[in-house]
């Protein structure tokens, strides 16, 4: 054959290329003769696409979805039309799963750290090398310090399988969901102990769609978006429900409120207790329900008798007439009244559980349980258990002093080992050293407040590894990074929804995995093999899913034939005469004896949280509708919708400080920690004694191309942490900031006078 020469390559170069012994060999292995005739012309749009049902995981709400796939490519995501909760709808984040899947900043291959921790300098390694390294270090640390030196921070669907590995290694620290201890822990416990079931955890059994009146205490639903949740809220309003919103900030739902109460931050429990007292004194409570189904009424009556509306008006900086009108409005709608149990609850530390207990108590006094519009009962959906996806013979080793069982927080063991205890143990070796950390699905730098201490703790570890999709903050601090499949590339098991319209569905891959990533199950299986852990016998995730479906008389195939979802009849309501609760006495606990047994208040008390020191204002934060915590800040579509956060600042305060809308400032907290620059939103929609920002911005990870340095991170301003006494959750509204503009420190003027009853935070710098 006459071979043309396109370039003049010298004999020396040719020889050198040959001795590099890759010319014409290594390269040729990249292609083979085509076996199938692919589409010759690239098509655009989603018309004619194959539809694959699955479950969204852009947030933990897990809406059923349909993925539209064309030529093996995901082109669009919609809600599953057969889903009773979201139908064809997904939120902005649900839509942008396409961007997550195809983001070039994804972790593409196992990585090994070659620079310092936090530097983000890596070498690419094989899966065998990565898993060998993790297994070697787990065994080494266990041998040297004992099993409890291993700890696992986890969150989300992909974390379960690795949890089994930690369990099988014998550590008691196999689950510490920072997101749980930083979020729904207090309300979960408050409702569990009051009503005997977890009314509000990952799911909420909360019937807003049928309520005649609703009370939201700082729940910013609508900014905090879960599709079905928002739909139910809107449905309720649409049917004429009255709405009372208590929030220092004029939030999205405040905009829809009949009565908006801009409360002084930190005084919500005072208002709740005064309302409870008022309801009892004015005989506005449901006497039948209380007499037949509640324990502890007299004790409650006694305990709250001093909390008057007049007192609350002063403490909370609200008008007496407004708070009276609000409670009358709620009482009038009883029992079809929805006292929203709240979600993100870890605000002030010591009073958080009591605040949520007070919502539960008011719910019970109104008899708003198991009736339309109140909180309701879950309807269990049958689902099997795939033992083949777990380790066998798991036994947690005894610890001389158990971090879980001998925790200073008597109820934390129910949920795992508290985040704070683990960090403390890493730093102090008390009660024992923790030397290895596995992290899955958590941005440990931004999710856990006081990242300075977290970073210090990480440096003390012998080894840290993570399973990650994006090269975020956790990855840059890890010794080994294991690249995880996105939720669009894997099975996770069967999902059931026990709410008003129960259903069963399954997450399944909609496309083949990109890059050299592996599913969490296969990662766990690979480690089990190396660590000599028996179990994990399911060869594939399909096997695991089919195992779980057996109990529901389904297979993956039969479920897919029915549109990927089976809907069941809900039984959320009960006859008020015969309703039974899963507490020991079968009744609602208005005073919780279990708390009393642990020397904790059986009935909430108002314990003032310190007000800002002079010159400072309180920092609070919330969720943005187009972002999921810190997870989505680098997502192109979502980034375009909201590229940065702003600091909400009261207009009168701004005028006094000479700050204009959109001006850039820096925040400095009470311990001198400073934020990234952040633009100011000057607004009358926030009280003068508080500033607000959306959470999830101000990434310090340069790996997140789009998100790096955009806006400020609230977590980096949190160094004063108060732990709640029940489960040890970290407080997030106990930090105070002042403003720095053009290098000048500006003290915040105090425009709302502080009553004597509320102490001031004693700052070292103030």
């Amino acid at each position: 054959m006459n071979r043309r020469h396109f370039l003049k390559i010298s004999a020396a170069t040719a020889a050198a290329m040959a001795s590099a012994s890759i010319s014409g060999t290594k390269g040729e292995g990249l292609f083979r003769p085509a076996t199938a005739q692919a589409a010759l012309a690239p098509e655009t749009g989603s018309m004619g696409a194959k539809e694959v049902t699955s479950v969204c995981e852009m947030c933990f709400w897990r809406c059923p979805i349909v993925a539209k796939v064309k030529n093996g490519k995901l082109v669009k995501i919609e809600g599953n039309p057969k889903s009773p909760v979201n139908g064809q709808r997904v939120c902005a984040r649900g839509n942008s799963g396409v961007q997550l899947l195809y983001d070039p900043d994804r972790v593409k291959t196992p990585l090994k750290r070659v620079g310092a921790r936090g530097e983000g300098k890596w070498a690419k390694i094989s899966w065998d090398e990565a898993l060998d390294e993790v297994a070697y270090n787990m065994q080494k640390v266990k041998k040297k310090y004992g099993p409890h030196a291993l700890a696992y921070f986890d969150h989300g669907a992909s974390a379960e399988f690795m949890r089994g590995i930690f369990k099988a290694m014998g550590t008691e620290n196999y689950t510490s969901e920072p997101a749980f201890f930083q979020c729904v822990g207090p309300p979960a416990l408050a409702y569990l102990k009051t009503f005997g079931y977890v009314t509000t955890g990952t799911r909420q059994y909360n019937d807003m769609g049928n309520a005649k009146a609703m009370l939201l205490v700082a729940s910013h639903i609508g900014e905090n978006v879960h599709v079905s949740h928002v739909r139910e809220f809107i449905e309720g309003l649409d049917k004429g429900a009255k709405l009372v919103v208590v929030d220092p900030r004029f939030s999205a739902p405040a905009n829809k409120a009949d009565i908006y109460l801009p409360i002084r931050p930190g005084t919500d429990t005072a208002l709740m207790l005064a309302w409870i007292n008022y309801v009892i004194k004015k005989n506005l409570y449901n006497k039948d329900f209380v007499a037949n189904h509640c324990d502890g009424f007299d004790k409650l009556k006694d305990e709250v008798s001093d909390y008057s509306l007049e007192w609350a008006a002063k403490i909370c900086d609200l008008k007496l007439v407004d708070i009276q009108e609000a409670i009358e409005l709620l009482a009038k709608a009883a029992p079809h009244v929805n006292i929203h149990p709240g979600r993100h609850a870890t605000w002030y530390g010591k009073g958080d559980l009591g605040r949520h207990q007070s919502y539960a108590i008011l719910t019970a006094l109104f008899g708003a349980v198991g009736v339309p519009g109140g909180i309701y009962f879950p309807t269990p959906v049958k689902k099997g258990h795939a033992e083949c996806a777990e380790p066998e013979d798991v036994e947690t080793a005894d610890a001389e002093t158990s971090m879980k069982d001998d925790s200073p927080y008597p109820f934390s063991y129910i949920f795992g080992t508290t985040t704070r205890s683990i960090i403390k143990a890493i730093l102090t070796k008390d009660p024992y050293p923790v030397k290895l950390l596995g992290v899955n699905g958590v941005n440990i730098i931004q999710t856990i407040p006081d990242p300075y201490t977290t970073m210090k703790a990480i440096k003390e570890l012998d080894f840290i590894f993570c399973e990650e999709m994006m090269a975020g903050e956790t990855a840059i601090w890890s010794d080994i990074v294991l690249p995880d499949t996105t939720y669009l590339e894997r099975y996770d098991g069967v999902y059931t929804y026990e709410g008003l319209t129960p259903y069963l569905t399954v997450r399944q891959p909609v496309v083949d995995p990109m890059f050299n990533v592996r599913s969490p199950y296969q990662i766990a299986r690979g480690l089990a093999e190396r660590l000599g852990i028996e179990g994990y016998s399911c060869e594939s995730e399909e096997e695991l899913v089919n195992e779980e479906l057996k109990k529901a008389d389904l297979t993956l195939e039969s479920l897919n034939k029915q549109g990927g979802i089976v809907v069941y009849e809900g039984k959320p309501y009960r006859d008020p005469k015969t309703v039974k609760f899963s507490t020991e006495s079968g009744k609602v606990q208005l005073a919780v004896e279990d708390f009393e047994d642990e020397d904790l208040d059986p009935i909430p008390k108002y314990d003032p949280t310190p007000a800002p020191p002079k010159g400072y204002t309180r920092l609070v934060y919330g969720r943005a509708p187009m972002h999921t915590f810190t997870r989505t800040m680098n997502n192109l579509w979502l980034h375009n919708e909201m590229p940065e956060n702003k600091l909400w600042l009261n207009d009168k305060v701004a005028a006094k400080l000479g700050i204009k809308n959109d001006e850039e400032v820096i925040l400095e907290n009470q311990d001198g920690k400073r934020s990234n620059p952040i633009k100011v939103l000057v607004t009358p929609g926030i009280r003068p004694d508080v500033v607000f920002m959306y959470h999830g911005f101000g990434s310090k990870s340069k790996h997140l191309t789009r998100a790096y340095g955009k806006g400020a991170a609230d977590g980096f301003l949190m160094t004063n942490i108060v732990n709640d006494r029940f489960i040890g959750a970290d407080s997030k509204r106990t930090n105070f900031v002042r403003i720095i503009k053009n290098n000048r420190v500006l003290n915040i003027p105090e425009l709302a006078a502080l009553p004597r009853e509320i102490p001031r935070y004693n700052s070292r710098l103030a």
Partner: protein
Amino acid sequence: MEPTHPFYFLSSCFDYPDKDTPVANLSDALVLLAGDMGLQLESDRKQVPELETLQAEYVRLFINSPGGVAAPPYASVYVNHSGIMRQKGYDEAMFFYNKAGFEPVESGESPDHIMHELNFLGLLLDRDDMSLTSDFLNSHLCKWYPRFEQRIVIAEPLPFFQILAQVTHLCLKQTLKEVMHEQATFS
């Protein structure tokens, strides 16, 4: 057999350097090829990098790095400025592979990776398929490569990758010229 083009070699240079990669030979050959292409190199740029340094740099440039992956090596990211994978640039690459009767072997890398595209170009040239080569270069590879190269240059890479980016540019330019009988210009 004497190589008629350097594209398998260049493709290999864009592969991750592992412990079996003859870094010194690769580096020497690249420097010689640069010379053939008329590129004048300062002597300090000809130094052979340590394997570990080369690996960390490869990860920074093409996989994950501070500041974001500096230069994602995928056509899709550049072709219609989508910035993400599996978009038009990917479709185009797959279209050409298919038209030539090839399919990419599953490798853990996206088929529109520069390594695949250069390799494919080598296959086309070996086959003497001038019409498809011209289409592939004109309407695809030579359109996105300069944007990719720019991202590499902006990242101030180690000399090895800087030379690689430049040499590849020159080789593509020269090949396009030959194929088009000097009718086309390189965008």
